[in-house]
């Protein structure tokens, strides 16, 4: 079993060969270059059980995935999994019967949800076979990198709630 760790965990989810479905992976790759050692960055296909394993013991987790909610292509949604259920309809572009939304809800039922878990959903347009993002989604990928980078550098997010010397711990309302 993984040991508890306080390094932020960023997980990009998607399928490289399904057009805009790759956006989570692409954002994760770009973040990995920028975040260097200040975060752990993983790429996953979106298998729910693997996700649950990946975030086991993690304190703060950010997931980036493509979504189809009917919004304009390239729209960026931010879901705080700790405060409300994740709308699994939005993640239906995944081929997994047990994917991101299911992993979050099962973790909640098993009381295994990380202390903070945020999902960035980027609205995709083309989920057909092939490689490459739609222009709107490519633009959103750049913006998502900026937003997630900023979020991982907002100190309160990764404050240790049990650390009495951490002034931000009690004001941790960002997630």
């Amino acid at each position, binding site marked *: 079993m993984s040991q508890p760790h306080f390094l932020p965990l960023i997980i990009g989810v998607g399928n490289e060969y*399904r057009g805009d479905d790759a956006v989570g992976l692409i954002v994760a790759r770009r973040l990995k270059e920028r975040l260097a050692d200040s975060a752990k960055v993983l790429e996953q296909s979106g298998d729910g059980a693997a996700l649950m394993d990946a975030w086991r013991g993690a304190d703060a987790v950010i997931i980036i995935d493509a979504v189809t909610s009917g919004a304009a292509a390239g729209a960026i949604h931010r879901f705080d999994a700790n405060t409300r259920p994740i709308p699994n309809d939005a993640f239906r572009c995944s081929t997994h019967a047990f994917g991101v939304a299911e992993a979050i809800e099962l973790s909640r039922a098993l009381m295994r949800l990380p202390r903070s878990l945020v999902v960035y959903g980027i609205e995709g347009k083309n989920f057909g076979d092939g490689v490459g993002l739609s222009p709107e989604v490519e633009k959103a990928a750049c913006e998502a990198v900026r937003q997630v980078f900023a979020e991982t550098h907002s100190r309160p997010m990764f404050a240790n709630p049990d650390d009495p010397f951490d002034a931000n711990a009690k004001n941790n309302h960002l997630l």
Partner: protein
Amino acid sequence: MKSGTIKVDYLARVEGEGALYIKVKGGAVEDVRLKIFEPPRFFEAFLRGRHYSEAPDITSRICGICPVAYQMSAVHAMENAFGVKVDGQLRALRRLMYCGEWIESHSLHIFLLHAPDFLGYEDAFKMAKDHRAVVELGLRLKKAGNEIMALLGGREIHPINLRVGGFYKTPGKRELLGLAEALKRARDEALETVRWTAALDFPDFEQDYEFVALRHANEYPFNEGRIVSNKGLDISASEFDEHVIEEQAHYSNALHSTLKGRGEYLAGPMARYNLNFDKLSPLAREAAREAGLSSECRNPFRSIIVRSVEVLYACDEALRVIEEYEAPDRAAVEIVPRPGVGYGSTEAPRGLLYHRYKVDERGLIADAKIVPPTSQNQKRIETDLRRFVPYYLDLPKEQLKWRCEQAVRNYDPCISCATHFLRLEIERE
């Protein structure tokens, strides 16, 4: 419900998305359609012009659920085209990798997708609140499978270590031994799972199937064997196209497979079990008997027990491979591409997966054909529903709809393989 339609716009707890439409008129089922909209033919087009060595990795992306199966059928087809035989420890490692995929795929289906149907829950989350230990057991078993794939495949999802001719890198004995402890525990838990599934309630619904699966002289089939049936079919992979017809149904883009002159058939765990019971390990055979299964199982609802028996077998077989393993001198045999056609069929968790490639003198793919298990089973799933629904027509519509979905889940359909989207409708008239 005497007349009307049942529509399920989105079938939950199946891999990928699809729809079901059932029309009932005057107390009789008039029409059943399992709708699938996006065929994998685009992938076949995507493969054309690619180098043969790319086929395993590209096809493994057709579905995130059973990537090993796609890689295996692709490497076997290419090796068949180039006249290459992979044996010894490299062959054993491929079996081990397949064990990993069966364990993780079956565990997911048994505990998180199928069990809620038997225990009366809408989904696994609601079930988890009351049956936490069961769900935790399922997750542990799945992880044991994932660990095999992570070690041999280089990573859990979309393994990248498998190649035509063998592997990019083979593990040392000590690395494999590292898996043994977890697998022994998984084997005990798999045995517990067989007993647990055997105690569930099953509707009395036995059918006369033509089961189709691989059969090998010495082993329960993963990668090799003749394609056989309980009704006399006995062919090699290279004869698949002569015996299996793929037809377009007007309401679905996925192709329906039938046996020439004989009609629909069933691939998957029940087919493998019925055709290869004698090749299971003694432990798995004994557990099956103890669970009340004979060498024959024709009730699709009991497929949850059969899957558990296969998980137990896969744990047992994985431990055997690990124990007998000696690191091979080389990770892959040499491949010299030559023009020709290659055929490969292996046993994906959901059943027979057929690949055929035509390769030119430069080793480039000129033509590709992929027949996934779900499209082979599609017609048989519809027939089962046509026979199953009449027993439940007295139920209120919502319950009937749920029964239909449960029946579809017996087959663990992977719509992502057969296509990408599935939705369910039932129409009253």
